[in-house]
């Protein structure tokens, strides 16, 4: 659940059986826990990471043939993140990220409508 108070440093944005996404208000970062691994993302990195995952067409990947199609490598220059996902993991990560994105958007609306000093 979302915590509106500014005091909570860590808020779990979204959680599934596979992992979770946490927002760290103090360090201004997002933390992804997935497959037993913890990764830290600056805001811009997180947005880019989500974009690259969204840009992958899962259906194409499923129907694709040949070696390597069942493994996807996600990497961004300028960040230390390098992920190797199987198709199965990709589905899990996609679900996780879209859930987190929805909560981020909801939080934005709450900030705009309820917490803002401008009404």
């Amino acid at each position, binding site marked *: 659940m979302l915590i509106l108070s500014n005091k909570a440093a860590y808020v779990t944005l979204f959680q599934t059986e596979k992992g979770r996404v946490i927002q760290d208000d103090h360090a201004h970062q997002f933390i992804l826990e997935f497959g037993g691994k913890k990764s830290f993302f600056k805001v811009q990195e997180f*947005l880019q990471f989500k974009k690259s995952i969204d840009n992958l067409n899962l259906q194409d990947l499923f129907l694709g043939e040949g070696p390597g199609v069942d493994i996807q490598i996600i990497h961004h220059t300028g960040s230390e993140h390098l992920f190797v996902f199987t198709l199965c993991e990709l589905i899990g990560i996609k679900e996780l990220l879209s859930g987190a994105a929805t909560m981020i958007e909801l939080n934005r609306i709450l900030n705009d409508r309820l917490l803002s000093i401008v009404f």
Partner: protein
Amino acid sequence: MKDLIRMKTSLSEEIEALLNNQVKLEAKSSSIYLAMASFCDQLGFENSSEFFFEQAEEERVHMLKIFKYIGDAGGNPVSPEVTDIPQEFGNFRGTYESALEQEIEVTKAINKIVSAAYKEGDHATANFLQWFISEQQEEEFTARKRLELFDVIGTDGIGSYMIDQKIPEIGPPPAEPGA
């Protein structure tokens, strides 16, 4: 809970994507104008060639303007990949027709972003784009004026040559008195 994304950038994902798309469109315009400059040069129309060359440079400036705005707003500007540039435009008149059509497309794209910006309450982006609205108004006006030369003078005999001579004279509409 802080709104971390808003603290990082004032652009929504949608507006950032639309602006990056515009960066690409301006870059593409620049490349097409360059192709038009080459095409007119081959046909022997020096003034037109020079005119399109200058347009190409202008469009690049437009691209950089938007590119910088995205970055200044905390967003992530993307250096555009420009492909499928036509290298010929039928004939002399066809080139100016394509130029007008291209400007109309750019106007439509700008309008779309402004509408999206207002819808989201992103007045900074809407305000930033006001300059482009005026610019497009002027670009369409002058593009039509150039095309009118073809109707007024015609391309028979030395007509095409005369049109090319007239091209540098076409300018923006005179400012309204008191404006």
